[in-house]
């Protein structure tokens, strides 16, 4: 009671403008292996929030955002950050986390005990599909079980019959390597070696030496673009071990091309994405806001924040227990299709009692326990840039 009085008093002091704030947590790895793509991810999420605020149609209050750092691979830090955001900043939902391991840690240790909804734009570990989540966890990124299948399809279509796989030694890398191996072997291919690598180490010639001895036409790199994955590719090129690489989503980044120059010509990979007009609209919005919308997982981040706010509007409540059941409804048909930049229109429809089918920047279609169905863009390095060659 004392606490309540104190809070009321504080709110009174702060003035009415803050009384109906809707704080939203954005938890990404602003430090650690993904630190070069997370700023664009956070800006994307904040852009969705700004759009909703600017519309003036979000009746539950002014949405504010609080950023938190999960270190991408530091579960201790991630849980502490999430705990702070939930208990002290009182966030009503979490956009995040980014990497699979910390996402699982936050889900089990903070989100479930406190009953807070999480929508991750980039956690792709298959293990999260079956994790206990009390209906609180969603992701706008597909599970890597799907990506493994896509990798196998791309390799088979390109006539590759033997591959070696190296993965970053964590939940994301190991899960992805497993699913690639399973899918490629099932398709009749041979996997000569599956070797892990640690991120942030000084030298990768040992790993590349072993992989090269095992052989394979293509080296599948399931790692991070700013971390061990890049070291592996650098070493492979220098030692003449592999010429062609298959890059998973975490490996797609312009910094890789800048560092390797034209040596990567003909290398291919895939990123979540669909043949969707929303992608272009989102990129225009991002350019106008002054950041790069083609950065990995930026569209998914925008969608994660937008979905969360639309679900709140549909539930007419900011309580996780109320709006968690509306996330799937706003994401999927039936309803009018909503693209980036049309959030105000979506809010109008919801206020009028209508249905929306949020498509967004990444063609959101939630399946199963609330994860993206998984559309991928197959990319190939042509003339020093990642070009989309087809959609899968």
């Amino acid at each position, binding site marked *: 009671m004392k606490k309540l009085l104190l809070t009321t008093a504080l709110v009174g002091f702060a003035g009415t403008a803050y009384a109906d704030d809707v704080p939203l947590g954005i938890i990404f790895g602003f430090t650690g292996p993904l*630190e070069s793509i997370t700023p664009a991810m956070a800006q994307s999420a904040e852009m969705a929030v700004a759009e909703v605020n600017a519309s003036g149609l979000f009746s539950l209050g002014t949405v504010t955002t609080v950023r938190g750092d999960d270190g991408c691979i530091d579960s201790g830090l991630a849980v502490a950050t999430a705990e702070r955001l939930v208990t002290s900043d009182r966030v009503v939902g979490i956009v995040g986390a980014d990497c699979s391991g910390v996402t699982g840690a936050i889900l089990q240790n903070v989100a479930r005990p406190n009953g807070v909804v999480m929508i991750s734009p980039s956690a792709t570990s298959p293990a999260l599909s079956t994790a206990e989540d009390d209906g609180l966890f969603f992701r706008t990124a597909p599970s890597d079980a799907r990506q493994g299948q896509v990798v196998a399809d791309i390799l088979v279509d390109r006539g590759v019959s033997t591959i070696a796989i190296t993965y970053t030694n964590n939940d994301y890398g190991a899960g992805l390597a497993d699913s690639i191996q399973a899918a490629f072997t099932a398709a009749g291919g041979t996997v000569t070696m599956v*070797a892990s690598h640690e991120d*942030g180490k*000084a*030298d990768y010639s040992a790993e590349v*030496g072993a992989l090269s001895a*095992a052989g394979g036409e293509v080296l599948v790199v399931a790692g991070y673009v700013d971390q061990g994955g890049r070291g592996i590719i650098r070493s492979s090129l220098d*030692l*003449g071990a592999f010429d062609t690489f298959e890059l998973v989503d975490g490996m797609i980044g312009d910094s890789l091309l800048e560092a390797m120059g034209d040596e990567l010509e003909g290398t291919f990979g895939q990123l979540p994405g669909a043949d969707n007009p929303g992608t272009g609209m989102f990129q225009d919005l991002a350019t106008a806001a002054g950041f790069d919308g083609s950065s990995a997982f930026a569209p998914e981040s925008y969608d994660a924040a937008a979905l969360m706010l639309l679900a709140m509007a549909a539930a007419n409540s900011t309580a996780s227990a109320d709006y968690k059941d509306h996330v799937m409804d706003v994401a999927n048909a039936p309803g009018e299709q909503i693209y980036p930049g049309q959030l105000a229109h979506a809010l109008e429809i919801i206020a009028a009692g209508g249905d929306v089918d949020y498509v967004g920047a990444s063609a959101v279609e939630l399946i199963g326990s609330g994860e993206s169905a998984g559309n991928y863009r197959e990319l190939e390095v042509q003339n020093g840039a990642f070009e989309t060659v087809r959609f899968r």
Partner: protein
Amino acid sequence: MEILNALVLLANFVLIPAISYGSQLALGALGITLIYGILRFSHFAHGDVMAFGTMLVILVTWALQSAGVSIDPLPTALLALPIGIIGTAILLLGTDRVVYRFYRKVRAAPIVVVMASLGVMFVVNGLVRFVIGPNDQNFADGARFLFTVREFRNYTGLDEGLGIRYSQMITVAITALVVAALFWFLNRTRTGKSMRAYSDNEDLALLSGINPERVVTVTWLVVAVLVTVAGTLYGLDKSFKPFTYFQLLLPMFAAAILGGLGNPLGALAGAFVIALSEVGVTYAFRKFFQYLLPESLEPNSLMQLLSTDYKFAVSFVLLVLVLLFRPTGLFKGQSV
């Protein structure tokens, strides 16, 4: 022919990478061992000071590049080295004045100074990220390969190829140069001798009139040269990213301890042992033996002693063994 192929294979995948990596570690380990020997504490900020020095070199390199200065095929960064060294020296002398001198004056226990250096580490860590950011930075220019694997294969007609990069040549050459100069300095000059005397017995050195502050200053200056050169060479050979430099701390310390803390020769040997064992023990020797052995004896397995997952375990197992059986390191250093 078969033997040549086997040797080329081994050189390309084990020897050359290990030697250039070992050289980079050696320069770092030398700095650690000097600080330990003379200032008597483990300098945890070493990796981040390395990143700081490299950052300065990168900034100057960029300025030179935009001014059109080039020494092709050598990287422009070599021209920027002196300025990087001066900046690093200022940083090191500054931290010594602000942080370490106090602890030296009160004759604090080594562990206290180590913790202070941990604090310095975080500050420098933040400073580097503040100035240049956490991302990878590309500053290498000039030619990359002396000859590539493919060129070598075409030229010699062998099945196996061997590639040598300019950065590797530069690394080995500069390391040899710097190490030779360091040993000459320590063994032949008056200042070098007074440093060794101070390291051997502080009180005796003070009694014979050696100015401790001067020894300390010179040590930091030498360390500034070593870390900046090591960091720049590593950045040219691989890439510059502050996080990776921080992680270099472990192998550098392992090398210094393995060789015997406080012993420069030991640091050098330790660095090459660590580098060779990391690369060699986890290499899959199947192809190597396929060339050497008659067909009937050819191995089916990968012939890998240890999976690469255990790469880092190798250096630490070595470290534990050395500490158990020779606490002073392979070469006689100070026990830890």
